[in-house]
């Protein structure tokens, strides 16, 4: 497969970004797994949540190529998370203020 030198070169040019993305995701996953396994300090969940958020953004921008998409698709990608924010915020207003 991918016999010639030229083909390997083309292939690498196209695969560089996905490979780097996967590498970055694995690295971030490594951080989270390490934190989860060792629990080095209290409230480590805040860091874990930030790392998970970074992974999500990485998938959106790079794996799903939202970076290159027209503004409308970018808006669609954001709006869902905004609505999740509404759902969480307004529900938590109740749970966090219960006596």
């Amino acid at each position, binding site marked *: *497969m*991918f*016999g*010639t030198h030229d*083909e390997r070169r*083309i*292939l690498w040019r*196209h*695969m560089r*970004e*996905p*490979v780097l*993305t*996967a590498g970055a*995701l*694995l690295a971030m*996953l490594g951080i*989270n*797994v390490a*934190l*989860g*396994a060792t*629990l080095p300090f209290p409230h480590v*969940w805040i860091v*874990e*949540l930030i790392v*998970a958020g970074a*992974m*999500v953004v990485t*998938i*959106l921008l790079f*794996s*799903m190529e939202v970076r290159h*998409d*027209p503004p*409308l*698709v970018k808006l*669609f*990608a954001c*709006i*869902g*998370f905004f*609505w*999740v924010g509404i*759902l*969480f915020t307004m*529900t*938590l207003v109740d*749970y*966090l203020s219960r006596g």
Partner: protein
Amino acid sequence: MSAGASDSAVGVELVSHFATVEQQKHAAVLGMWAWLLTELLLFAGLFLTALVLRIIHPEAVQEAARHLKFWIGATNTVVLIGSSLTMSGAIQLSRLGWQRGMVRFMLATAALGTLFLVLKGYEYYADYQEHMMPFLSDRPYELKDSPPSRLFVNLYYVATGLHGLHLMTGITILLVMTWQASRAGFLTRHQNRIEIFGLYWHFIDLIWILAFPTLYVLNR
């Protein structure tokens, strides 16, 4: 012969009710994103439930989360990230028109997806062995002294089950598409199907990237 590049150009065949191919492709991308919005909100309901359970029963949730198979979950995340990489590979090759390579990448993606399900199945089996299935009436529940822990364990089954269902659907569609795509001329007519399916596959991955910390990591 090289990586299977066909001579014909890569493209999309116009369906009659669209005016241009550009319009048709744009509609397809937008349609998939609209669908993904609904998927996100679907799982958001489950994540919210997890968070609320954590708020009202912190100890019970932590106790339950400690019984989840953390390392299987982590391995499965690696498997899904790998499947995303092969899916990206399939998309890249479809753009180049390298049909054979693309088909191989698609098969690899389906294989990794199946591996995820197999590991998940093994995890369920281990849960069963450890009496972590509170809904089975004939099998005493491990954490019976902590009734609220049942709620979190139940949520774990609904969330992972629903995610598994999405993955199974994805693998089925992927295999059907691989079969279609292995025939000549697919990329000249339906290249964008690979891209659209890729969005779905990456999003299932994204959901798991959220589900893994929500269920396994944050509550430890």
